[in-house]
């Protein structure tokens, strides 16, 4: 049983990564593979949708940090949405909230971006 899936949606300069399941060690390969597909300067914004993620552990945080490192190298912005208050707190503790803005839901996360695009 694989308990992590990721679904990538590309829309111009915006890539949305919808995750489902537990963001832990076992998620690494799938998430990296998905990010590889949008790790190009053409993609300016990455939106991580956590609304279907129930559990994130320190290994999951490390995957996000690796992704952020790569994104910064190509001037990509990463946004997040759907984190529970508990994991918003953890993002804050680790310092990720300084670099990854959090929105309540996917619509809010995409709103400003689509305005830019238009």
């Amino acid at each position, binding site marked *: 049983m694989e*308990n992590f899936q990721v679904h990538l949606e590309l829309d111009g300069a915006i890539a949305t990564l919808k995750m489902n399941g*537990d963001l*832990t*060690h*076992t998620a690494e390969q799938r998430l990296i593979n998905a990010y590889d597909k949008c790790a190009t300067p053409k993609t300016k914004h990455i939106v991580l949708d956590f609304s279907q993620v129930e*559990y994130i*552990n*320190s*290994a999951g*945080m*490390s*995957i996000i*940090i*690796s992704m*952020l*490192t790569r994104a*910064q190298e190509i001037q990509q912005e990463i946004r997040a949405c759907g984190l*529970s*208050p*508990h994991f918003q707190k*953890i993002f804050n*503790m*680790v*310092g*990720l909230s*300084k*670099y990854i803005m959090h929105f309540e839901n996917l619509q809010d996360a995409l709103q400003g971006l689509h305005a830019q695009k238009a």
Partner: protein
Amino acid sequence: MKKTASAKSEEKIVRLMIPSTFGYEKIAMNAAAELAEIAGIPPDRSQDLCTATAEACINAMQHGNKMSPTTSVDILYYLKDNTLEIEIYDHGAGIQKHPPKPVLERKLSKKDAPRGWGIFLIENLVDQVEFGISSRHGHVTRLIMKLQPAEVV
């Protein structure tokens, strides 16, 4: 689990043994959540305790038991009058030196590896943490959550 001002409630002990296999730490988390509910710990603090429990189990599997699937991580839960304590035992030599506080910027600039958040999270999420070696059980991480004073009914 309602306590009266006069009644001295007994200590409750729950014990769990899981294999050193990623994913099984969720069983330990769920048990922590259930005991937190019995103890009347509010949901946000319960989630803190669950995350700390999971991280301590993962460290026990990785660093203590070297991921040997036949070596178990033992978890003891003590529900006492004023605290909920969780002890996570592994069969390793324990933490040799307390790791330095991880700094995100050092990781983003690739000076440090992206990992290394477990102990930092544990220490920031529960009221008290102790690391130790028990002659009988091996290395132990002890997580302590204080309970609110018992409601008088």
